[in-house]
């Protein structure tokens, strides 16, 4: 690991910290993941892998699709 410093504006910092907390990871890990997603894929023939984890979602995102798309039953 190489230590480095980045400057963020206050709003971005707050949002990053909040998202990291929601995902149960450190702010540093959140930043590392964001960088990984922005870098070109290690394998240029698998560009679709860049989209893996493009949003944080929730633990049950894949099991509540109908609720989101069609609305949950009252």
């Amino acid at each position, binding site marked *: 690991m190489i230590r480095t410093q980045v400057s963020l504006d206050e709003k971005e910092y707050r949002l990053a910290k909040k998202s990291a907390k929601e995902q*149960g990871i450190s702010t540093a890990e959140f930043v590392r993941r964001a960088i990984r997603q922005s870098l070109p894929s290690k394998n240029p023939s698998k560009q*679709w892998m860049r989209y893996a984890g493009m949003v944080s*979602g929730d633990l049950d995102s894949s099991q509540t699709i109908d609720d989101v798309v069609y609305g949950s039953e009252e």
Partner: protein
Amino acid sequence: MDRRNNCYVDTSAFISFLASSDKYHSLFRRLFAEAPPLVTSALTIAEGHAWFLRKYDVERAARFLSFVRQLPRLTIEPFDKGVLVDVAAVAARFKDQELTLADAHALAIMKRYGLKCCWSTDRHLELTGVPLAIREN
């Protein structure tokens, strides 16, 4: 074309791969990295797009479409008048399950191609006996 060795990919598999906090994210990350030829329904793509639109925004919904465009060896089956009979028959057979049209189309496609593999976290898609990837991995 013989598609029996293809896998059906459902909205839930797309979302799990794209959402890092999802329970099955690691599994679908691994599966998509070495993906076999995949088949899906045009309705599945519409569902995925709607999920990003409702939960996030237009930008994320557009990124979802970019992701789909970049997936190699993905066949998107159209939903047109020609498939209505098959899809209606599936929906009627499982009427107690209140299948969405996308689910019914998925089951009809799997049957038509004789698929034995289904990437999904949705129990509705195992109604015809095709095992879900989450049970096998």
